[in-house]
């Protein structure tokens, strides 16, 4: 039962990966169109990625707590 709960926890990693992929892909698209803002964009992209990743981190904390 405990392992089933852990397995359910890991399910949330997939959507987060998809979301991060979309985020980084779009950011690179914007950088490619507009290379002058690339440096400015990179930091914001990292922050956004970290925010999106926090969902996965909560799931990971639950995974270890279970």
């Amino acid at each position, binding site marked *: 039962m405990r392992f089933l709960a852990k397995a359910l926890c890991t399910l949330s990693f997939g959507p987060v990966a998809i979301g991060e992929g979309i985020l980084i892909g779009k950011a690179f698209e914007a950088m490619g169109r507009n290379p002058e803002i690339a440096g*400015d964009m990179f*930091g914001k992209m990292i*922050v956004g990625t970290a925010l999106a990743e*926090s969902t996965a*981190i*909560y799931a*990971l*904390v639950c995974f*270890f707590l279970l």
Partner: protein
Amino acid sequence: MFLRISGTQSSIQPEAVFQPFGWPISGTCLLSWLIIGLLIILILATRHLKLRPNRQQTLLEMIYGLIFGLIAQLTGSDQKAKRVFPLFGSLFVFILISNYIAYIPGISSLSWNGQALFRTPTNDFNTTFGLALLSLFYIQWSSIRQFGLFSHIGKYIKLAGIWRGFRQSLSAGLMGIMEFAIGLMDIVSECARAISLSLRLFGNVFAGEVLTIIIMGAFAWLLPSTWMAMGLLSGLVQAVVFTSLVSVYYTLAVSE
């Protein structure tokens, strides 16, 4: 098997190493005092700065410039960045050093009474929650200092908006009630910020360490070093993210 190295997985709760007078002192505490000592040495070393820098000073100034540039970019002005730099810059340095200090060979294998003597400070939820609470209280305090106590509370409990709206018209008054509810939601989101900031840092560092031990147990050649090199990157990214989120929250709190 010589291909595998087994290690003990650390639990989420840090164990007490010493217990003088029944007061538990964990390895996290010891290592963070060590890091603070290191930072104090750094402060003492930078007392005699010269106008024409030598090599070490150039390196330090470069690092300073990078952190300052990050904070200035997010707060939007050099003046604000200068005001918050003493706190947020030291948060960055502390988190970065504590993420990296575990990579010094041997520091994690020192033990006392069969327990690991040191444990990475950011690998303990108490430390990260403390750091998040400290920075959020600083943000609240600087908002109070800028707007005064009553208008700071008025940012969360927007009773004045309802009063002004109903004097204007009925629909504006209903909008005022809406704003009041949103203001109450902001109180919840402030609390959620503390939890999300600290859990993000703790989760990343803890997961990194656990995965290193698991990978070591699976295959001890070459693969762990790749993972640890990735860990160097993520340690830097976590320090950057913590600092930039805190400076974004600061900017949101003191603007308008």
